[in-house]
């Protein structure tokens, strides 16, 4: 099978050598006198194809914002090269660490032996400076995936790239051309500095706090008393309804395939072509809401796995570490691929155009979302209108909950204390909720309820048991945990080899958490048990509950964690399949 790679050359993925893609993103470290990442308008992405790959992890000076900063790079590229491989092949990837600190590469979403998963401590000892680690595994799946460092905060500073695995059979989705659209967030600040700031002042990066003007506006629209009353719960709980993202566009520059919004990434097409866009959220902390004004999208895959196509989609939210593949069929012209950050503090963008000289207008961002009672895990009937008659009682509940442990509706005990600022009172399964900021926006927005596997569920056994975990935290102290217990104090989760287990996650916090289980599929219970979609990363909306089934078919020790980089050290568990 032949296909067009993103740099518009015809590439045969079955060739037994790797092809060095055009590293025209101008990482000319060592070549260019300045050693800077120049702002170029090219759409070329480095691409490596075949079954044997050599990756070198290094430190490269980049300039994405006008300031020179040291980035961690792969083959001198940020993002790293796209790896194109073919299902069924034995893959060899030699990763050489030329950085001064230990590193690692994790192949996100790939089903492989535990010792190839790339998590230091669990899979291997990491790749020490100067060392080469050879990863060897069989590509047992096809689709869009990605890879990233699993050491420290290296992912935040650039160690990530995309993986495209061509199907061994003819692809069930027909397309003429495909592009990887890899989204990420870049900061000129050091990740350690960001983390320290969050610990010292958790709303440090908030750019849209409530002001007196908001109260005045609300008072004008619904009366002063109601405006004040509506603030009651938030004030009692010492929380902000604008706490959407911990780290925002204040420090982040959002990138599309490594390109800043001012540069913009460009993909070209010929009118009439079917284009497959492979969206990957490789950001450290940022959820994106993606739309292409003027184009309807057909969503055909998520997390690399084919789903029953969902047509006429205007917009979808992509959680950190998720992937979505969509098909678009544009007429001649230019279209903006618009990915606004969930808190609307900035956006990443690209252009699809039939004429490289032609660009499309960039839409304005939507208003910043405001959290509702639904997002706080309180069922209050409708989402935006709230019934405050039961408010007094609720505040009482909140105030009286700071005793040793609190039992949720499901029966799991959350260890309460300084590390937990809230437990969802009435968490709901909200699969058909597009999420805060996307509700009733006049566009057709994809939800988890729309996602069904293209193929029947393989393991039809009912789960033998249920593992319930609360996603817990204290925003103001900036502490994160599962069930009120952070990773450092936790014991591993045990799964017996071969068993089928239901994981139920309850989000007791005010933000979305993307939860990633390594090594095994998370089969999201979206309504049809015969067609459970297989995902590697599940977004749990604030105040919501969600469940998925896991067949423990991979022995070994695996990581299981929130994929937000500044949450994961606490919101993490080791899973042992034995």
């Amino acid at each position, binding site marked *: 099978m032949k296909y067009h790679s993103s740099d518009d050359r015809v590439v045969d993925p079955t060739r037994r050598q790797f092809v060095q893609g055009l590293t025209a993103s101008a990482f000319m470290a060592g070549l260019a006198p300045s050693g800077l990442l120049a702002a170029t308008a090219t759409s070329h992405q480095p691409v490596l194809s075949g079954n044997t790959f050599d990756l070198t992890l290094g430190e490269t000076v980049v300039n994405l914002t006008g300031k020179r900063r040291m980035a961690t790079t792969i083959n001198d590229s940020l993002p790293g090269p796209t790896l194109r491989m073919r299902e069924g092949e034995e893959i060899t990837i030699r990763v050489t660490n030329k950085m001064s600190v230990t590193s690692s590469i994790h192949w996100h979403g790939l089903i492989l032996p535990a010792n190839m998963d790339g998590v230091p401590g669990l899979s291997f000892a990491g790749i020490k400076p100067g060392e080469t680690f050879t990863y060897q595994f069989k590509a047992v799946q096809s689709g869009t995936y990605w890879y990233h460092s699993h050491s420290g905060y290296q992912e935040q500073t650039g160690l990530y790239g995309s993986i495209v695995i061509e199907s061994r059979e003819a692809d069930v989705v027909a397309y003429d051309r495909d592009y990887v659209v890899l989204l990420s967030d870049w900061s000129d600040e050091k990740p350690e500095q960001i983390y320290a700031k969050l610990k*010292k002042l958790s709303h440090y990066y908030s750019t849209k706090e409530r002001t*007196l003007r908001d109260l005045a506006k609300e008072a004008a629209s619904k009366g002063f008393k109601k405006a004040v009353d509506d603030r009651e719960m938030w004030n009692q709980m010492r929380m902000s309804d604008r706490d959407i993202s911990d780290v925002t566009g204040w420090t982040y520059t959002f990138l599309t395939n490594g390109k800043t919004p001012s540069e913009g990434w460009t993909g070209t097409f010929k009118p009439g072509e079917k284009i497959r866009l492979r969206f990957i959220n490789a950001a450290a902390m940022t959820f994106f809401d993606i739309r292409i004004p003027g184009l309807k999208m057909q969503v055909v895959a998520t997390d690399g796995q084919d789903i029953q196509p969902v047509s006429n989609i205007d917009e979808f939210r992509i959680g950190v570490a998720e992937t979505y593949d969509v098909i678009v069929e544009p007429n001649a012209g230019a279209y903006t691929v618009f990915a606004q950050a969930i808190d609307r503090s900035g956006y990443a963008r690209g252009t699809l155009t039939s004429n490289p000289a032609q660009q499309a207008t960039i839409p304005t961002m939507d208003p910043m979302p405001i959290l509702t009672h639904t997002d706080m895990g309180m069922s209050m009937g409708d989402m935006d209108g709230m019934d405050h008659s039961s408010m007094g009682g609720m505040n009482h509940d909140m105030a009286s909950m700071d005793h040793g442990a609190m039992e949720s509706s499901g*029966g799991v005990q959350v260890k309460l204390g300084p590390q937990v600022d809230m437990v969802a009172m009435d968490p709901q399964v909200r699969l058909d909720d597009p999420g805060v900021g996307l509700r009733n926006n006049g566009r057709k927005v994809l939800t988890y309820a729309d996602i069904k596997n293209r193929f029947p569920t393989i393991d039809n056994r009912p789960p033998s048991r249920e593992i319930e975990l609360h996603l817990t935290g204290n925003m103001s102290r900036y502490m994160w945990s599962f*069930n009120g217990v952070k990773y*450092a104090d936790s014991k591993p989760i045990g799964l017996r080899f071969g068993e089928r287990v239901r994981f139920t996650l309850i989000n007791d916090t005010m933000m979305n958490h993307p939860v990633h289980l390594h090594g095994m599929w998370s089969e999201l219970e979206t309504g049809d048990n015969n067609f459970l979609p297989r995902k590697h990363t599940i977004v749990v909306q604030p105040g919501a509950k969600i469940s998925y089934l896991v067949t423990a078919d991979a022995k070994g020790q695996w990581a299981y964690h929130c994929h937000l980089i500044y949450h994961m050290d*606490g919101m993490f568990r080791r899973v042992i399949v*034995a």
Partner: protein
Amino acid sequence: MKVKLSVMVLGLCISPAALAKHKPMTMDCSQPMHAKMTFCKDLAAKEAKQKATEAAKEAKQKATEAAKKNTTVDHSKMDHSKMNHAPAPAKKATAAKVDHSKMDHSKMNHAPAPAKKATAAKVDHSKMDHSKMNHAPAPEMKIPVSDGALAENIPLPFPGAMHMEDDPTLYKLMIDSLEYQYTDSDIDSLALDAEAWVGKDLHKFWLKTDLESEDGKLEEAELQALYSRALDPYWDLQLGIRKDFEPVSREWAVVGFKGTAPYMFDVDAALFFGKGGQVGARLKTEYEMMLTQKTALAPSLGINMYSKDDLEAGIGSGLSDLDFSLRLKHEFKREFAPYIGVNWSKAFGGTADILEEEGEKTSDTQLLLGVEAWF
């Protein structure tokens, strides 16, 4: 809620019949491949619990049906008042199996619901090798529904830190106010209110200082050194010592609470225990009202009280002094906010008397020009 409870109670009484339908669970932990015996047991217990949960559900359903058919159950002999029905489906199943008529329910402790009970109720013991079982209850078995955690920790298979420390040792230096205080008299003063901490999420070492000088002479100077421990999501308990250098030397033991009160008031409240039974109390609170994303109006209130007179220090017993100020800050960056403001202060009772004797004012209004900063 009452309806739900009564249905549950019915479930407890009727369920043996429903449970009888459930086959005993067979465990296959005797195989040599199951090297980690406790792990295996752990799983077995949890699976049994799961079964028990299902059984309980079924029983509940039966009970509901029964209730609909007006089946009467004699509850009169049971003491239901002490039963905690809220948690632990597993526990319900356990209770469901036994004959309630012979039990003194008042002594039942339903809260922790040991999974072992559920295990005992459901597992076919004939197939298990009990000699290898560790009968001491694993601590997490008290959790009524599984969080999946193993009974024991298993060491990491490889060396090498996986991540950054989630709780690094950090420090923060805060100049809460460094300001010139202008009054209508000729005496202008310079005041510093600063704090610093070093430590981790839940345990920190704090330093606090208050300095005030008039015409270049240090009039007031105190330093506190405190151990700070997080008590709950929003409050820290702070214990330590305070040393006054000016106007007179005094030593105090400190017990304080620092945190955020509802409505986002920053509060620092402390009791000071001095020599000779002197007790002082101080409350400092501030509220920041954002006018724009950068500008805030911040009212603050400070109150000092003492149990005894201390003439040398210029202190009278009772409410000693109160100050209220309003600062208009502009955050050039989060860490740096110059401000203008006004402060009104008044001395009361014995403290006011001492001031009057010394010919000083007991009430004062000052214009403030200063800066707030942190690192």
